[in-house]
């Protein structure tokens, strides 16, 4: 096949690519995005499969069996991690408008230009040779298709790689820097990359099917013949020369690569349209990897079986096999597939690197340079686009020069895995920064610098040595002959293959410095704020989402802001309430006016103080990041303090509540105890009165056997009546407990008070006779009835009479009982001629236990409950009871009870 034909095919394919990109951009401009689908998203991620996959996997399989698969199992494992890690990276990046991996690192560690620059430089150094490798693959594939001997007429003009690089630069400039917007999305480019992914998959499957079914009788025949060949058979059960450790290293490195390679970050994070695509891409992408690797081993085995040993490099089996069978068209399909794999990688990687160079290396320097005065310029888009384009040309020129100058060296061939190992150095800084708030800028700088230094020493310098640029003794003897420093066996560690060895020592240096320095340093204000935003990307997402996109305050921002301090639910309710109070529809409020902002400020001031609220609000209203960091720091501290004091308050109020409960319980217990004592005393007192009466009459009957039958009968009647009353009393005592508890059943009925008083006089006449106290009764006949409980009324009269007789002097005592009708009701008066009651004791007379007997007789003369019970009964019946004691006239107790028709007061 002529080189011209190949060139025409290649050119035709690239034109098609431009057309696809143009179509994608057109559709995006028209608002009908073609890339908004999980499948396109997954296909764009397949930019992971470069020419190194397309050609190199077969070469690797031909040398080491199945171990090439490890490089694709890592991304599959990472696919499982996407839900946790990549989704968080996505959230963080969208919230912080992050455009590259360097930006991500810089933003996390306090927007450090130094860190961003370091990552950008490292990426440039590591990835540019990788781009060169793609150019080399294209060039080699052309040479394989058209082995024209001295085909390279002229230094540059005959070189396919140059044309490819130039076209790629054009493509990247056209579709990678078309417009400079905040999101850095390039829909046309993504469409082209997805298209390329389809092309390379179809091409590889086509070659695989051709080899397996046209050249052989199915894969079974390839395997059977391979198993029969003693030189090839060991490959069938081989998982590479690295052993178990080498396998794990490959899996881990490829996991890191899929997460942190600049081109993967570009397609997975920056170009992501919808976060939900991630879930589906997380299985579609591994499926793509599985499919593209399906025929790798059969092709490798077929190549070993068919092609003369050593005549063709394993990397070129994909092209050489169809050619050997004379199928030029299949070889051409393979060539296009390889071209697609190479160009896809070059395009995305170049754009990612150019963005990084522009945003994290060139612009920070330009903006700092006062002489240029850029910071004051309003519109920098033109300059930015210029720098991007320059960066693209620079990256591709560097890539081409690498290829041209060191194209055949070991250093270039091995750059694939070398770059994976380098990219893995980002892992501790990025993963640590996303999940560990305490990671600091110095820790990140130390970790990255240490990791890259060890990487360069254990992988890059030995690669140079193997390319012949450094004395090979550097590897075998160590620098200056120091064996402990041999780059493939640092300190003599028995770590197997160089890659595993390097991964171990780079991670020791990287993680060690990262963690150690982070622990040893304190983060600054900006760092702490950024740490919170990154680590708590999910919990702060609402607030984060609200920030950044708007220029003026949105109500949603203010609600989210207030919600952080007063709780989302309360904030929402408060704002809704405020809106309704002003006659606005809360659901339709979009932009906040002055009133709402002031309301928000007040709401915030309640939680964090007026000063903080003002600063906080100022940022939300401006919606820009200027000064936000400091404000956030202040507020985060304030929040911590508020949270702490709130917890303290909660604890102390809980304690207070508990102790109040205890106090109440204690009071209740004391009251119950007192009530019990009182009840017992009352019971004994009330039982004693009728018992005394019964005893008195029984004694009279016993001591005077000569009593007349009529008198004896009357006495016995009294005894019986008193016994009955005693029984009733016992019941009543029990009832009293009910009164106390409010459960006594009063037998309230119109009652003849005269009859009740007569009954009381009869009941107490025994005591009077015993003590020799005269009783004068004056009961007005024909009194109207009172509304009362008869037994309780008798009880009142008995209590008063026995009280009077108790305090009347024995022998000369005289008690007068009178019952008269009056204006407000009937009036019962019991007058004795005892010593009377001191004036100061009168108010306390009816209280429980108010015994003043000591003043009269020198010792307690009663339980002190009789009068108290009287008052309780009288008051319950709606009457009044009081005592008078004019000096020298004894004591006079009066009870007034309303007539039955006049009771208006409801009993308590």
């Amino acid at each position, binding site marked *: 096949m002529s080189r011209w034909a190949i060139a025409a095919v290649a050119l035709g394919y690239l034109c098609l690519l431009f057309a696809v990109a143009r179509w994608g951009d057109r559709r995006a401009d028209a608002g009908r995005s073609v890339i908004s689908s999980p499948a396109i998203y997954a296909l764009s991620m397949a930019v992971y499969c470069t020419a190194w996959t397309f050609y190199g996997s077969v070469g690797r399989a031909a040398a080491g*069996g*199945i171990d090439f*698969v*490890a490089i694709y*199992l890592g991304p*599959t*494992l990472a*696919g*499982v*991690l996407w*839900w*946790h890690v990549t*989704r*968080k990276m996505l959230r963080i990046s969208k919230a912080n408008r992050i455009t590259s991996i360097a930006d991500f690192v810089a933003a996390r560690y306090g927007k450090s230009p130094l860190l961003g620059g370091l990552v950008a430089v490292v990426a440039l150094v590591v990835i540019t040779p990788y781009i060169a490798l793609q150019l080399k693959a294209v060039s080699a594939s052309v040479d394989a298709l058209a082995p024209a001997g001295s085909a390279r007429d002229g230094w540059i003009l005959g070189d396919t790689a140059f044309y490819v690089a130039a076209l790629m630069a054009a493509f990247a400039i056209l579709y990678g820097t078309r417009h400079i917007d905040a999101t850095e999305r390039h829909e046309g480019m993504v469409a082209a990359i997805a298209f390329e992914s389809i092309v390379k998959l179809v091409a590889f499957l086509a070659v695989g099917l051709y080899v397996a079914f046209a050249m052989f009788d199915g*894969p*079974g025949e390839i*395997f*059977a013949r391979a*198993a029969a060949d003693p030189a090839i*058979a*060991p*490959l*069938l*059960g*081989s*998982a590479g020369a690295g*052993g*178990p*450790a080498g*396998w*794990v290293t490959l*899996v881990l490195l490829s996991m890191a690569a899929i997460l942190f390679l600049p081109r993967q970050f570009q397609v997975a994070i920056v170009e992501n349209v919808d976060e*939900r695509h991630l*879930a*589906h891409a*997380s*299985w579609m992408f*591994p*499926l793509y990897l*599985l499919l593209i690797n*399906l025929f790798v*081993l059969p092709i490798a085995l077929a190549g070993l079986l068919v092609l003369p040993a050593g005549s063709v490099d394993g990397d070129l089996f994909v092209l050489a096999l169809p050619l050997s069978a004379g199928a030029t068209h299949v070889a051409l399909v393979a060539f296009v597939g390889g071209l697609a794999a190479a160009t896809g990688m070059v395009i995305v990687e170049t754009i990612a690197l150019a963005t990084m160079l522009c945003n994290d290396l060139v612009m920070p320097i330009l903006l700092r340079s006062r002489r240029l005065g850029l910071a004051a310029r309003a519109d920098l888009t033109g300059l930015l686009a210029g720098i991007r384009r320059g960066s693209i040309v620079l990256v591709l020129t560097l890539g081409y020069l690498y290829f041209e100058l060191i194209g055949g060296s070991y250093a270039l061939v091995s750059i694939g895995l070398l770059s994976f190992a380098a990219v893995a150095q980002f892992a501790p800084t990025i993963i640590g920064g996303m999940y560990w708030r305490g990671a600091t800028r110095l820790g990140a700088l130390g970790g990255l610098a240490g990791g890259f230094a060890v990487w360069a020493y254990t992988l890059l310098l030995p690669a140079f040595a193997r390319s012949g640029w450094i004395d090979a003794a550097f590897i075998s003897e160590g620098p200056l002959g120091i064996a402990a420093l041999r780059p493939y066996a640092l300190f003599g560690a028995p770590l197997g293959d160089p890659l595993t060895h390097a991964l171990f020592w780079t991670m020791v240096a990287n993680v060690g410095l990262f963690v150690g320095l982070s622990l040893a340093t304190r983060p600054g204000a900006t760092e702490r704020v950024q740490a919170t935003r990154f680590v708590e990307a*999910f*919990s702060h997402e609402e607030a984060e989402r609200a920030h950044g996109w708007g220029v003026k305050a949105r109500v949603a921002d203010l609600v989210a802001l207030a919600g952080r301090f007063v709780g989302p639910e309360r904030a929402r309710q408060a704002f809704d309430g405020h809106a309704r109070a002003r006659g606005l529809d809360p659901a339709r409020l979009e932009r906040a006016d002055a009133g709402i902002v002031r309301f928000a400020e007040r709401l915030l001031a309640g939680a964090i103080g007026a000063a903080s609220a003002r600063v906080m609000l100022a940022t939300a209203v401006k919606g820009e990041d200027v000064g936000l960091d400091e404000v956030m720091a202040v507020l985060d501290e304030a929040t911590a303090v508020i949270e702490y004091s709130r917890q303290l308050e909660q604890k102390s109020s809980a304690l207070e509540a508990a102790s109040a409960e205890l106090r109440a319980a204690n009071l209740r217990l004391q009251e119950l105890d007192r009530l019990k004592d009182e009840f017992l005393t009352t019971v004994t007192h009330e039982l004693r009165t009728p018992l005394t009466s019964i005893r008195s009459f029984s004694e009279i009957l016993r001591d005077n056997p000569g009593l007349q039958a009529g008198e004896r009968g009357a006495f016995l009647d009294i005894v019986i009546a008193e016994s009955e009353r005693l029984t009733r009393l016992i019941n009543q005592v029990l009832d009293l407990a009910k009164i106390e508890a409010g459960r006594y059943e009063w037998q309230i009925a119109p009652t003849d008070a005269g009859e009740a008083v007569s009954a009381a006089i009869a009941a107490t006449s025994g005591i009077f006779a015993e003590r020799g106290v005269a009783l004068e009764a004056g009961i007005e006949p024909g009194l109207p009835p009172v509304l009362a409980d008869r037994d309780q009324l008798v009880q009142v009269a008995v209590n008063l009479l026995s009280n009077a007789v108790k305090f009347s002097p024995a022998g000369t005592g005289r008690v007068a009982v009178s019952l008269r009708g009056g204006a407000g009701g009937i009036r019962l008066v019991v007058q004795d001629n005892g010593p009377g009651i001191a004036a100061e004791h009168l108010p306390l007379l009816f209280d429980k236990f108010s015994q003043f007997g000591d003043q009269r007789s020198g010792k307690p003369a009663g339980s002190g409950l009789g009068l108290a019970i009287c008052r309780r009964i009288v008051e319950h019946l709606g009457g009044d009871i009081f005592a008078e004691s004019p000096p020298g006239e004894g004591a006079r107790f009066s009870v007034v009870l309303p007539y039955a028709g006049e009771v208006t007061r409801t009993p308590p």
Partner: protein
Amino acid sequence: MRRGERLAGLLLLAAFLFSPVAIGFFQKPALVLGAPALLLYVFCAWGVVVALLALAARGGRDEDGPP
């Protein structure tokens, strides 16, 4: 929530299936069903993990919470 847990479990399963120990069981140049045992195992395990990932993505379609 559940999806995050399911995926964590799947990560453990995949880590075992892809571990050198599991791979090591099949590291002999024997043919099973006409294909090398090692190749067959690796692609089957790979397929199972992809299928489970697809199931997890489908099952969690409506969930959008933090992990």
